[in-house]
């Protein structure tokens, strides 16, 4: 009898361990790392948490569309912008959205440039509330792409009660469909439904972002029913896609997102200090071969710096196929391909690096792969302790500005003292860049940015390898799941069409 009871207990325990989670009010999303960025970050929690909103947001073609602002106008000289705000928006602490509140938010970034990551308001002359729902911004010089710049993932608008005297957020109190609840280091970030969300009460009472760093474990958690969705950096590794597609209870979807993976050359160190060596290396690259052999569907060969849906910048500047006549420069010792450990696991750079090392090794240029923790990698890259590295970048403002700032503009990022990562310096690029960011109209800006991209396609301090095709997966019965070009899920749109039994 005792034995039977023992067996029964073990069986119950095992079945409990393997049973699915059936709480239909909570959505559990498997993510690779915490969304909580800490209070030194201007928005504290990533956009994916759906806690805060921006004046605008970028659509699939990276064109700004309304979010908190219903519409906007610009003066003919490009220096004065007026944003007309929605009138039905409340923040999670009950404060209504108003022009004065938006002005406070913008002044916060102007007063604390270290929080203004893309230096949007560096040349702001004045910010005033013209009436209850109209904000007028005057700049010292034209800023023709402002609607894109107030829609990026560090440009959240927050309730004034959340902002401390030092300009930092005490807590992320926004107007999004979900309120921030708590973060447990290494475990989860949790948000709860904001009942008075202007888009209507969200379906799920709570959303838990469960931190599962290993992609294979995330897949197993989805199969076990511990999580409902996998949608974050890295998503579903392409190797698991066929297996997941064969499971009737799982839906796998893919989308081309606004992330391009670049190969960066160290332009201050031989052999890639020579333009000729960079050019030969680029011409030898078999982007199509890499896409079919290594990426196997998780990326498309890049023929330009930007994703093809960003049509304003796409000129097919790079060949996806290799020049079979080209030969690499000789190097006295193996060139170092330095990787960030977090990128290795999030973006599968380990396999891309293997491919490059093998491909160029056969051609006579030995490559040694090294890896460092993300912070140490960034420092090493800034100090030029590499020959080659891989780097993902998106276009958060809809233009190539960030790309050029990070990788080619000699002054680098204005804030946080980040210089450009390639060590490349060109007076022509600098001059064109200054003209582009202060261009009097979009056409002039586009012409200058494209001139820089043409020049960079010749100089090649960095080259695009492939554009990310992102795979995500969720349990059948959920609807409204779709990631935007920056991997954000619209949580307010997600609901159970047919909850699991």
């Amino acid at each position, binding site marked *: 009898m005792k034995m039977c009871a023992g067996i029964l207990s073990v069986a119950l325990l095992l079945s409990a361990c393997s049973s699915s989670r059936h709480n239909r009010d909570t959505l559990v999303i498997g993510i690779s790392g915490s969304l909580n960025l800490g209070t030194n970050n201007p928005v504290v929690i990533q956009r994916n948490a759906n806690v805060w909103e921006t004046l605008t947001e970028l659509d699939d073609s990276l064109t700004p569309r309304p979010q908190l602002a219903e519409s906007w106008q610009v003066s003919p000289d490009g220096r004065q912008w007026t944003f007309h705000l929605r009138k039905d928006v409340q923040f999670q602490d009950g404060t209504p959205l108003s022009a004065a509140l938006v002005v406070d938010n913008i002044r916060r970034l102007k007063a604390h440039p270290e929080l203004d990551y893309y230096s949007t308001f560096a040349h702001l002359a004045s910010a005033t509330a013209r009436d209850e729902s109209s904000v007028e911004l005057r700049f010292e010089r034209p800023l023709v792409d402002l609607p894109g710049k107030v829609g990026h993932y560090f440009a959240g608008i927050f309730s004034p009660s959340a902002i401390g005297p030092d300009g930092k957020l005490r807590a992320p109190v926004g107007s999004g469909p979900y309120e921030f609840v708590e973060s447990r280091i290494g475990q989860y970030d949790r948000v709860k439904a904001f009942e008075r969300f202007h888009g209507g009460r969200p379906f799920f009472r709570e959303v838990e972002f469960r931190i599962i760093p290993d992609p*294979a474990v995330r897949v197993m958690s989805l199969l076990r029913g511990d999580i409902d969705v996998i949608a974050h950096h890295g998503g579903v590794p392409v190797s698991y896609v066929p297996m997941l597609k064969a499971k009737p209870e799982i839906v796998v979807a893919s989308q081309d997102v606004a992330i391009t993976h670049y190969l960066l050359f160290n332009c201050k160190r031989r052999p890639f200090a020579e333009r000729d060596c960079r050019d030969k290396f680029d011409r030898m690259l078999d982007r199509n071969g890499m896409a079919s052999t290594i990426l196997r569907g998780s990326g498309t060969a890049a023929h330009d710096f930007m994703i093809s849906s960003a049509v304003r910048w796409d000129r097919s500047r790079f060949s996806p196929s290799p020049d079979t006549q080209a030969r690499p420069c000789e190097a006295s010792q193996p060139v170092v391909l330095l990787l960030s450990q977090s990128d290795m696991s999030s973006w*599968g750079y380990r396999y891309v690096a*293997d491919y490059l*090392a093998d491909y160029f090794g056969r051609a006579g240029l030995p490559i040694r792969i090294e*890896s*460092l923790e993300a912070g*140490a990698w960034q420092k090493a890259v800034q100090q030029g302790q590499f020959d080659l590295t891989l780097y993902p970048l998106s276009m958060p403002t809809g233009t190539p500005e960030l790309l050029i700032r990070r990788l080619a503009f000699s002054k680098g990022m204005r804030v946080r003292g980040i210089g450009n990562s390639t060590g490349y310096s060109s007076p022509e690029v600098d001059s064109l860049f200054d003209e582009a960011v202060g261009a009097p109209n979009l056409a002039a800006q586009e012409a200058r940015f494209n001139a820089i991209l043409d020049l960079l396609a010749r100089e090649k301090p960095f080259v695009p390898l492939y554009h990310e095709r992102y795979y995500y997966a969720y349990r059948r019965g959920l609807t409204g799941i779709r990631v935007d070009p920056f991997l954000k899920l619209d949580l307010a749109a997600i609901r159970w069409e047919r909850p699991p039994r």
Partner: protein
Amino acid sequence: MPRIGIAGSLITALFLLLALAGDRVAPYPPAAAHYDRVLAEPSSQHWMGTDHLGRDLFSRLIAGTRTTLGLALAVAAANAALALVIGSLCGFLGGRLDAIVMRIVDATLALPGFLLAICFLGLFGGGIFHLFLFLVLTGWAQLARIIRNEISIVRHLDYITANASVGYSTGRNLFRHALPAVLPSLLILLLNTLVGDVFAIVSLSFLGLGLSPQTPEWGIVLFDARSFFLTNPWLFVFPALFIAVFTFGLHLLADGLREWLDAKKWLFPAEEVQLLTATASASGSDTA
């Protein structure tokens, strides 16, 4: 030697042989990619299948034996040398030196080794030198403490006291008479340490913190398999088997040795005790 010891020796010898002459046994060069055979299942052509670059897994595991085992042996040897010198001096001389060094040992043992490894190798990068340095810096302390304890017992034994009384120098007494008495137990300890070192090297490489990702090494082969172990399980199973069989063999060898080497017989070599007792008696000492 007991049977388990013989089995352990055979397994260990097989792996040593693979490490030394593996390149003659391996069917393919470990780095040779075959893009037409990516992620191939085990077959007569590739006994253990191929990885994401079409590299032969069996050849990579054989090459990995040399890397993993070679590094683990080097670490174990360096640890043993350091620990022998420090531990035996502290144990034999005692006093202030012993007190100070043992506090350093305490501090070293109190450090969370694996966490420290992640920080150290994450910040300074992996590679053979860094991995070796880290494993030696954190590995010597435990061995040194055990050797120190053994030596401090031995130094109070009569034959050592007798040696001292007849004028043997401290160095001669320590290195020629006390140290040999603890060597058998050190050997067994070293085999266990070797298992620990292999696990440390494999684990750190598996986390992407150890050797260069290109190096054929057991942990790196496992790391490579991470994205495929649900769909291509052989990439995970065979390296795991290599590691399991090797460590199992080492454990068997250590157990066999422990049984074979009668610790007391080695601690008190009968002839030496007799001789020393006689010498001490002849010189009128009452310590023999």
